[in-house]
């Protein structure tokens, strides 16, 4: 049966590589050969192989282990079988340490090699199947790059579909990191404006005057440095959607200007006298409760009602914990690829740790945590230890007020005493928690006269 998998045989000895290639071809594999490490790397640059058979000793140039290491840089998932005529424990250990899947001594039994190839291909087939299923699943649970299977988010998706083709202003409310801009983009892309521009502005990022110029543009000479006329975001978004993030942060003057644009569908550039008409759908977003801001008098009620024609509330991640495994796996797959790492999964225990965490920074915080774990990961599967930093953050999650009039010495005394109480006097554990070595801890205990 013809196989869709390809194999590369790397050996400087022509009879060796050709006979093995012919033997593997009888099994239906597409087999390429390379006479040197450099030739093998060049082949691997153009194509990924399911299995790489690499001879350990290949003079001159780079040897088998170096070849393997270069190939694994190109394809971290590569299954490498190192072949050698002279087995030594040292070379076997080196080969396996550097990531060889198997290490075989020539000549080997046909049954052994047949089983070995069969086993690797079986895993490759399962991995491929898994990838296809995960993509199908991700598609099932994703809506314009928003991944979720929670019922609350399903309602959000439904609302997005319903309002996408309307012209009405939308107000998106959600904590930091919940994906407000993604929702805004989903609305834009699902509606008739999809082919027109989507322009995003963070109102919190710019000072009042800059934001005014950013939104409405300016005429030449409007202010120092305005050497030419500049079109603002409203004009750039004409026919499309303008996304105003952190809308609660705009000044009272800009609130008036914005209200006018929403009412009149026209505005004046800064320093200009000519009225500019635009057809822009405005989607605003805020992490704070805008209604409370209205009650507090910091946000105009008439602007609030103009913006709040359609209200979409994005639930925080702690209200949709069922999405955490789905999101975590998606981030691992993407970040592992982007960061050139070979992390491919996460243990159930690590997932539980993530599910139990409150994620005040929501999906963005989860993504950052996964990135940190992927960067520092020692194996292909992320485990609890890779997320140990979450435990630390959880302990610090409760805001800690600095006591008044407390000398630093006393702070140190109290912290050490509290840590020792928690570890039941275990010096090793306490020193690890405090991040100091044991002798330093003994010194401090002695210095402060702390009972153990």
């Amino acid at each position, binding site marked *: 049966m013809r196989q869709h998998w390809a194999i590369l045989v790397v050996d400087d000895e022509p*009879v060796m590589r050709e006979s*093995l290639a012919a033997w593997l071809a009888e099994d239906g594999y597409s087999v390429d050969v390379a006479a040197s490490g450099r030739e093998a790397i060049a082949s691997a640059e153009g194509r990924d192989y399911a299995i790489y058979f690499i001879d350990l000793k290949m003079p001159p140039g780079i040897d088998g282990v170096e070849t393997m290491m270069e190939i694994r840089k190109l394809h971290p998932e590569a299954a490498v079988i190192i072949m050698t005529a002279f087995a030594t424990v040292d070379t076997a250990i080196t080969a396996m340490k550097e990531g060889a899947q198997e290490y075989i001594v020539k000549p080997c039994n046909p049954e052994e090699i047949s089983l070995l190839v069969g086993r690797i291909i079986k895993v490759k087939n399962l991995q491929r199947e898994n990838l296809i299923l995960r993509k199908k699943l991700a598609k099932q649970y994703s809506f314009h790059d928003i991944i979720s299977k929670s019922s609350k988010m399903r309602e959000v998706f439904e609302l997005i579909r319903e309002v996408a083709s309307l012209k009405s202003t939308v107000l998106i409310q959600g904590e930091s990191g919940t994906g407000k801009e993604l929702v805004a983009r989903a609305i834009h892309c699902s509606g008739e404006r999809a082919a027109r521009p989507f322009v995003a502005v963070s109102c919190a990022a710019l000072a009042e005057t800059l934001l005014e110029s950013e939104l409405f543009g300016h005429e030449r000479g409007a202010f120092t440095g305005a050497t030419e006329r500049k079109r603002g975001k409203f004009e750039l978004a004409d026919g499309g959607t303008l996304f105003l993030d952190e809308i609660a942060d705009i000044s009272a003057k800009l609130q008036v200007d914005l209200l006018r644009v929403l009412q009149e569908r026209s505005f004046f550039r800064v320093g200009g006298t000519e009225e500019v008409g635009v057809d822009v759908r405005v989607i605003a977003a805020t992490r704070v409760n805008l209604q409370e801001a209205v009650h507090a008098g910091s946000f105009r009620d008439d602007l609030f009602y103009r913006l709040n024609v359609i209200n979409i509330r994005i639930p925080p991640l702690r209200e949709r914990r069922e999405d955490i495994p789905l999101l975590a796996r998606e981030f691992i797959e993407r970040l592992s690829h982007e960061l050139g790492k070979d992390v491919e999964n996460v243990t159930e225990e690590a997932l539980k740790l993530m599910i139990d965490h409150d994620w005040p920074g929501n999906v963005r915080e989860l993504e950052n945590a996964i990135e940190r774990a992927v960067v520092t990961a020692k194996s292909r599967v992320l485990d609890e230890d890779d997320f140990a930093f979450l435990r630390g953050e959880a302990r610090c999650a409760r805001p800690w007020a600095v006591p008044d009039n407390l000398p630093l010495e006393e702070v140190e005394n109290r912290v050490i005493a509290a840590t020792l109480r928690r570890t039941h006097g275990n010096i090793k554990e306490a020193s690890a928690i405090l991040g100091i070595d044991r002798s330093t801890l003994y010194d401090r205990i002695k210095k402060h006269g702390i009972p153990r």
Partner: protein
Amino acid sequence: MRHLGLGAAGTVDGEALDLAAASLAARIGLPVRRTPSFPAPTYAYDPRRRQFSSTLIMHHALARIPEGAEKLLVVTECDIFIPMLSFVFGQAQLDGPVAVLSLARLRQEFHGLPPNRSLFLVRVAKEAVHEVGHTFGLTHCPDRQCVMSLATNVAQLDAKGGDLCTGCAILMGETIRHLPPETLEASGGGT
């Protein structure tokens, strides 16, 4: 006339050769012609391994394919190997003109067991078709009953059948039907 060539490298069991010829003619569907014997493959002997290189035997045979032969199967009594493996029953060029078959390990005596002539001949019949099947582009078949399924030991060889499964038989028929035109002309000229 279009045919399969069958040659012995050195002295080879005559009955085994006859059976290989009959099995090939029946399963592949082309007449089989015996070629004059090839020399014993002393040139392929590896003193370190005390075995014969099947690759060198094939290279030797490649230059001696009889005119009009679609494929050539060389049979030897010598125990053969490829460098990577401790032994092979046979070796073939996938989609190529030559295959080699060793009778050494098909005998029960090789494995320290009492001789069993009929079992030996059945194995010869299967392996001859298997190796020539590769030269027609057939790869190992997942159907464990098909003669094209992989056997890495005699137990697996004995467990599989001697015929091509339906799928492999169709592929073989298609390959023979689509042989190059000049070969078909040669075939037409012979009849």
